[in-house]
């Protein structure tokens, strides 16, 4: 029987890798390594990474609410210093199982038969999972970067559905879940560069307590005001929380890093 052995949240801020202001960042890059060690020690065989497209993969002619790639993977296609566009170990059978379970459960997810992922998936896949390909990845793209946005409750429920899918797998697998996203950040707006630590702490407090209610009760307008358009990515955290209900968390690192534009939070969520 398959089980979820852990959940994580982590950022994918490109500026952390470009580092245009040449700021100290080793401790933040090190947080990815810390998570990679935890994933290795967990015995994980599969990873599901929830992320958003940044208007890089999906254009105005087709904007999926949920999309699961079911073929080979590589990325990030938007190469970053230290994070090249490399193959990502995939598992088409597992991906297709998740798609099938989603469709049976009321989530009509889209699929991509072949996909180069962007940094939302590529950064955690390349930096937080073992480099030997022993952990096979299935990405889940959610509409968190381009409107119409997935509803917060729907993101949480999607995570619950994923948890159910894993529990019903007839084979022994150990799965880790990753919610990829910055906390507060404004992308392409006049506020860009602002980081709202208060909002970030509120989000992290929910992850630590295992209580998603305060996040689910927020409106999109509140998130936009307090966390920016980039803050909409908390949907990915909610998906992990939905799959690990009442799972309490621990913050591994947090910083309103002045080398970038994003509240950078790294946390672990343990199954209840």
């Amino acid at each position, binding site marked *: 029987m398959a089980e979820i052995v852990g959940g994580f949240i982590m950022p994918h801020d490109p500026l952390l890798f470009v580092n245009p202001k040449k700021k100290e960042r080793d401790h933040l890059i090190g947080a990815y390594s810390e998570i990679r060690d935890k994933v290795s020690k967990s015995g994980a065989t599969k990873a599901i990474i929830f992320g958003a497209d*940044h*208007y*890089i993969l999906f*254009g*105005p*002619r087709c904007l999926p609410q949920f999309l699961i790639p079911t073929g080979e993977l590589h990325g990030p296609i938007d190469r970053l210093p230290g994070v090249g566009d490399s193959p990502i170990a995939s598992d088409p059978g597992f991906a297709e199982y998740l798609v099938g379970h989603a469709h049976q459960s009321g989530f009509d997810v889209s699929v991509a038969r072949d996909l180069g992922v962007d940094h939302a998936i590529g950064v955690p896949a390349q930096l937080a999972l073992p480099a030997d390909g022993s952990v096979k990845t299935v990405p889940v793209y959610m509409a968190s*970067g*381009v*409107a119409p946005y997935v509803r917060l409750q729907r993101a949480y429920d999607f995570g619950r559905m994923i948890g159910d899918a894993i529990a019903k797998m007839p084979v022994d697998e150990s799965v880790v879940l990753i919610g990829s996203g910055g906390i507060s950040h*404004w*992308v*392409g*707006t*006049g*506020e*860009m*560069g602002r980081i709202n630590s208060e909002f970030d702490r509120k989000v992290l407090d929910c992850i630590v307590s295992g209580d998603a209610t305060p996040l689910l009760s927020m409106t999109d*307008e509140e998130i*936009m*005001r307090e966390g*920016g*358009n980039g803050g909409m990515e908390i949907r990915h955290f909610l998906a992990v929380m939905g799959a690990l209900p009442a799972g309490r968390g621990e913050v591994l690192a947090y910083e309103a890093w002045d080398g970038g534009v994003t509240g950078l939070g790294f946390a672990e969520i343990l199954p209840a």
Partner: protein
Amino acid sequence: MSFGAVEQLFYDVSTKRNSRAAFREDATAFAEKYALSELERDMVLSMNAEGLFEYGINPMLLMGFWTSVNGPQSMPDYLSRVPTLTSQLETVSE
């Protein structure tokens, strides 16, 4: 209103090398391939970041278009022109 055509043009310029080169070489001719209104064409060709933002173009895409055309070193110029998200939210809620 052909809002989607504006975003498609921006998406093409941001993600496709050939489109980026074509826009840089002759923006007017490139824009002719898209069903833009006169107002939209004017905003695109004049790189009117403020107007395009207020028109509702996704800011992430707008920023990507701007830097694709003007280079990443032009970000301070872009940010000096583009309105705040807060101002847009206040306009919507009025």
